[in-house]
């Protein structure tokens, strides 16, 4: 029977250590909405989303009340729009109408974000893919809740460098179009290598083509809980450290599993996966960087950071995998700069650089995330940063991503303000040497040798 100490522990996690379920994301397939008539396409998309997600927000609120556990976000992901829209969209403006439809449907059902304004171009781009990509800056300017992602490479296919070059330009243009809000449009745009089909986290969520008609994916959180648990084992050896992380990850994930199963049962939609990622927020005590500090680093970015992050990520998975029947998505520690107070402090103290962050992405999901860079950074340099990150994902057979914000009109030493869960970010310097000739080459980087396993 439940005892008072267990109740006390759980409620302390929720009340004092920021334990929450970060998101319930409802994945919806739009494959059956495909139509060659643009108006009909938009209508079908709107109808399908609003019908399927009608009860998502109210069921989420019900579960919150039943267990007294906050569910911070309720979100929707849809089939990549490049696939759904290519039969009807012949100009980039046509794709923008679909973005507006997604935005309107998301607002109607009351979710925080809708993801899937996406294209999968890891090997090549269709005409529809390219049109969608070129429409991203406008789509993100005229909508509030739409998130966009583009998969630029994979271990199996190599890296599509034409698309990498194009995305450098599109990120720059998106920044330009939303410059009055510190180029915030770029916070809703992410590029991937090895993008997962069932990721519940934004901005990169989309509903993969291998998924069922509708599915519930849940992202748990809880950096604060891990940090508090570690504060009790200061000075102990690595065995104790790792066991503590593992046990804590187990507990956190079990809550996610419960919420996922309940949401699935109450909505009558199958349960997909739990994403085990440790997702920070700008709130004090809800930081991955603070866990790294608790492990023994003065700041995130100090020598030893990559090793500490590697063990953290691994132990979270080891604990989490046993707690859930299906694990998927990104599942790792997130290291966004703007959404994590400890990371912001580390950048301000000069301890954390773009290069160190890149090294850290080799051992954890997801990649260079929510990093503000000077607005005058060239499109080719952005493409270069993307190419580096894609190469890490391709060679290591893992997901990597780039969500970088060239803040127009601001430079190193200044701060970009995004507000809410997105936080604020000190602008970080980018290596000023040019990679233009490299990016200009065109074509694609072939798949690595270890992809030939057949």
């Amino acid at each position, binding site marked *: *029977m*439940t*005892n*008072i100490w*267990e*109740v*006390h*522990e*759980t*409620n302390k996690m929720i009340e004092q250590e920021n334990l929450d379920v970060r998101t319930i994301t409802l994945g919806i397939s739009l494959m059956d909405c495909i139509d060659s008539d643009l108006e009909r396409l938009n209508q079908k998309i709107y109808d399908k989303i609003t019908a399927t997600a009608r009860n998502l927000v109210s069921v989420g609120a*019900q579960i919150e*009340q*039943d*267990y*007294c*556990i906050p569910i911070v976000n309720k979100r929707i992901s849809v089939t990549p729009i490049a696939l759904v829209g290519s039969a009807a969209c012949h100009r980039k403006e046509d794709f923008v109408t679909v973005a507006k439809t997604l935005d309107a449907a998301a607002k109607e059902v009351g979710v925080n974000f809708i993801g899937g304004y996406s294209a999968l171009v890891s090997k090549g781009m269709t005409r529809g893919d390219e049109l969608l990509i070129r429409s991203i800056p406008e789509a993100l300017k005229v909508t509030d809740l739409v998130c966009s992602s583009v998969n630029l490479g994979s271990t199996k296919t190599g890296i599509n460098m034409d698309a990498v070059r194009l995305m450098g330009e599109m990120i720059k243009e998106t920044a330009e179009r939303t410059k009055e809000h510190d180029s915030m449009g770029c916070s809703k745009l992410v590029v991937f290598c090895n993008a997962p089909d069932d990721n519940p986290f934004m901005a990169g969520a989309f509903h993969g083509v291998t998924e069922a008609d509708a599915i519930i994916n849940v992202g748990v959180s809880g950096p604060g809980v891990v940090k508090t648990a570690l504060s009790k084992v200061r000075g102990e050896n690595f065995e104790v450290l790792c066991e503590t992380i593992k046990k804590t990850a187990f*507990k956190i994930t*079990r*809550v996610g*599993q*419960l919420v996922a199963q309940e949401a699935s049962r109450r909505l009558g939609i199958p349960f997909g996966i739990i994403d085990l990622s440790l997702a920070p927020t700008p709130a004090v005590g809800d930081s991955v960087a603070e866990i790294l500090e608790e492990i023994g680093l003065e700041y995130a970015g100090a020598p030893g950071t990559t090793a500490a992050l590697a063990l953290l990520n691994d132990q979270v998975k080891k604990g989490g995998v046993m707690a859930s029947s299906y694990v998927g998505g990104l599942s790792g520690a997130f290291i966004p700069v703007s959404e994590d107070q400890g990371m912001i402090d580390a950048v301000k103290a000069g301890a954390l650089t773009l290069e160190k962050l890149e090294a850290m992405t080799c051992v954890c999901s997801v990649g260079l995330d929510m990093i503000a860079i000077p607005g005058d950074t060239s499109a080719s340099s952005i493409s270069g940063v993307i190419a580096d990150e894609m190469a890490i994902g391709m060679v290591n057979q893992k997901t990597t991503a780039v969500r970088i914000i060239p803040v127009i009109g601001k430079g190193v030493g200044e701060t970009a303000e995004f507000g809410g869960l997105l936080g604020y970010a000190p602008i970080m310097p980018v290596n000023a040497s040019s990679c233009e000739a490299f990016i200009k080459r065109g074509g694609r980087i072939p798949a690595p040798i270890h992809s030939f396993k057949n």
Partner: protein
Amino acid sequence: MEKKADRVIITVVGKDTVGIIAKVCTYLSNNRINVLDISQTIVQDFFNMMMIADIGSSSKPFDICSKELAQIGQEIGVAVKCQREEIFDKMHRI
């Protein structure tokens, strides 16, 4: 035997004062909620009480009970929280 899904955990946390248990229990009995177990302790100088209750034959639905209990707590200056038991079961049992 009560169904597991009907079991809720009611926690009361706050400064100790006269009549906390009486108030909460009166509410429960008025609404035909059966108390299965009570334990209490002091954590960091705060009064902590936990009740396991069965709302299977309650006259009111869970969400109403939860709100009304929280309100009673406010009146006597303690935090009263009502949660379904599964969350503790899941987190602490393999």
